[in-house]
């Protein structure tokens, strides 16, 4: 049989990601994979499993639980980690949680800063991780389009977009001083469509919230919010209605808008995506806080 030396784009992206993941395992002392439970994380986690097969992945998975995640996400997280033998670390900003911080009372900005950014920075310091994988893609958002795959962070976990290390070929500069760290984005070159195709091709489990179903939702500031526990403010409670919806991204339930949809299979999701007129981050409330807000958050150390 004649041999074929051509890779499809998905296989090429897969090979690139595996190479990146192995490089981190080989060059850093204490790496961690940040896990958001979303579809991109699900792909990244599978790529890590592939990178070390038949061995176990030599680093833990860490989820920063803002305490406002959908219950289905938490259940999925625990089941997945158990089934695939991952060492799972869950960290939260308990101090802020006990003080009652949440998006309804403190606004999305304060909530995100305290429950996500500060919780993450605290956890990274606590375990002294020197490299942290994130599932961000360059096609998601404009400031990410310019970030390196190996993104250097100073002692305060800050990103300096004007002082990035040149990154050539597949040779990654992994040298850091004590206290500094690197964020690594193995999915940098994947697009949203690539992610969905890969999930379909590889049968990767994802949180059922991505698929359309009749769910209770309430309209808040133009977003369809699904109340996931009893912390929905009183004033919205009589406005809940059942709608056929799904989620294009997953996060804190008060900050993640559902979209009306009938897509209950991956094929239908892709079809919807190809014909849709809204890009995925529009369902994420935090992006609207200020212009270039993601860049601001990155500078502060969030992702």
């Amino acid at each position, binding site marked *: 049989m004649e041999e074929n030396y051509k890779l499809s784009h998905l296989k090429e992206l897969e*090979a690139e990601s595996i190479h990146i993941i192995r490089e981190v395992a080989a060059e850093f002392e204490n790496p961690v994979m940040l896990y958001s439970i979303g579809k991109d994380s699900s792909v990244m986690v599978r790529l890590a499993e592939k990178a070390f097969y038949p*061995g176990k992945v030599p680093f833990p998975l860490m989820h920063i639980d803002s305490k406002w995640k959908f219950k289905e996400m938490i259940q999925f997280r625990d089941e997945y980690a158990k089934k695939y033998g991952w060492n799972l670390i869950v960290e939260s900003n308990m101090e802020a949680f006990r003080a009652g911080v949440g998006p309804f009372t403190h606004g999305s900005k304060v909530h995100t800063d305290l429950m996500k950014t500060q919780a993450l920075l605290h956890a990274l310091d606590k375990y002294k991780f020197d490299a942290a994988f994130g599932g961000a893609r360059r096609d998601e958002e404009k400031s990410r389009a310019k970030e390196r795959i190996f993104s250097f962070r100073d002692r305060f976990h800050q990103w300096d977009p004007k002082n990035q290390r*040149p990154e*050539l070929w597949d040779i990654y*500069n992994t*040298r850091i001083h004590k206290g500094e760290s690197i964020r690594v984005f193995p999915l940098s070159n994947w697009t949203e469509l690539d992610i969905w195709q890969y999930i379909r091709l590889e049968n990767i489990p994802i949180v059922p919230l991505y698929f359309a179903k009749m769910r209770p939702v309430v309209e808040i500031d133009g977003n369809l919010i699904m109340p996931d526990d009893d912390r929905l403010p009183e004033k919205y409670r009589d406005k809940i209605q059942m709608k056929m919806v799904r989620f294009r991204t997953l996060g804190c339930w008060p900050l993640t808008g559902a979209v009306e949809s009938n897509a209950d299979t991956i094929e239908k999701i892709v079809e919807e995506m190809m014909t849709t007129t809204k890009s995925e981050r529009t369902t994420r409330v935090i992006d609207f806080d200020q212009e*270039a807000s993601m860049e*601001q958050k990155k500078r502060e150390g969030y992702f």
Partner: protein
Amino acid sequence: MENNNKIDIKAFLDKDEQKDLLRFLTAGSVDDGKSTLIGHLLYDSKKIYEDQLDALKRDSKRIGNAGDHIDYALLLDGLKAEREQGITIDVAYRYFSTNNRKFIIADTPGHEQYTRNMITGGSTANLAVILVDARLGVITQTRRHTFLVSLLGIKHVVLAVNKMDLVGFSETRFNEIVADYMQFVGQLGIPDVTCIPLSALEGDNVVEKSERTPWYHGKTLLDYLETVHIDNDHNLTDFRYPVQYVSRPNLDFRGFCAKVASGVVHKGDEVVALPSGKRSRVKSIVTYDGELDYAFPPQSVTLTLEDEIDVSRGDMLVHPDNMPCIGRNFEAMLVWMDEEAMDANKSFFIKQTTNTSRAHIDSIKYKVDVNTMEHLSIDNGKLTKETLPLQLNQIARVVITTARELLFDPFNKNKATGSFILIDPITNNTSAVGMIIDRIDDRDMLIDTDLPTLDLPRLGITPDHYDAVERAAKELYRQGIEVKIIK
């Protein structure tokens, strides 16, 4: 109806999964219309969603520079700092796909940081699109961009002659520019050059064939990008497997994980581990998705061997009849990437494939003026001792000596094993990047005698501690610091 639809999307996905990937670089000077061109490709390939478009329309009114047209350039300017300055400061990556292919664009700016940015963006590119303004023709920047593209070993170049609308779509003008460019590019040895007349702003020959250039019989830019053959860009001849990670999940399994840098390896092949020279055969090519009969670049796989030979990260598996250069001295083209100028006395870390060692820049043979391609050296009187050290964005042919033997090939034969980076040991910045020209004969090596030596008996270390000392030395070695141990 619903059923039909479902079959269609399945068929679409099945086809889409099989598309290949083309990575290309775009280069142009300020105002060549590069961002407009990319914006147009993205726009026409329907990648731009409506809400991004809404934001764009809003921004165009506020800060746009394109008059009544949509300012496509704003789509590409990601960072706040540069939006304020109205310039792109670094490399931005863009993604789009057509029915036939997926594309990754590395968009690099044309202003004074050009060399560093272009080199960064171009290192993974299969192809480069170089823009010229039809009114100005081939200018200094065009020559500079083309030189850098040739330095990176990019095999396919498109000269996009933009703003044809401003020269009345003149065939004569286009032919002049092409002749001018071909004369220049001939010296650089780029195998595939294509010239296309277009107007990025008005869309002529970008996606659709323009009626205003009836004399042009070639492809439109997108058509060309969709069809250009890139399969043979990988080196499939010389098998090089730089071991990245050793997997030992249990006593029965020892796998060597790596990306196939070049060449093809088959199950059963005889291989040599370098630098030890020990031989074995490939027992299996393991992946999560099952074992393979053969592997090729850029696949990331795990090899197991028939025999238990010692192989660790930084070692390389190759075929016995096809060896790389093994040595500590070579000549290379070096591009300085650091704000801090080169200090000739400094010893750098060198990272090449999966190896890290210490390196010293022994001499600078000559610098290249990227605008004229002229060689500048002390010998020809164009450089003095003071102007010799490399500064940011400068390029030179240098001689490098490394503390450990490296396993390499000339860059023009093998990009993956012929490239390296130099890292400043104090700041950890990537100071320079290099492309190996060839090995040079080992000369008297001072470094050998310079090696720090641990004479264990003389230091009063008892043999039961030798293991621990050797382990520590091995860890130092991994970090590029070699220590000689006398037992």
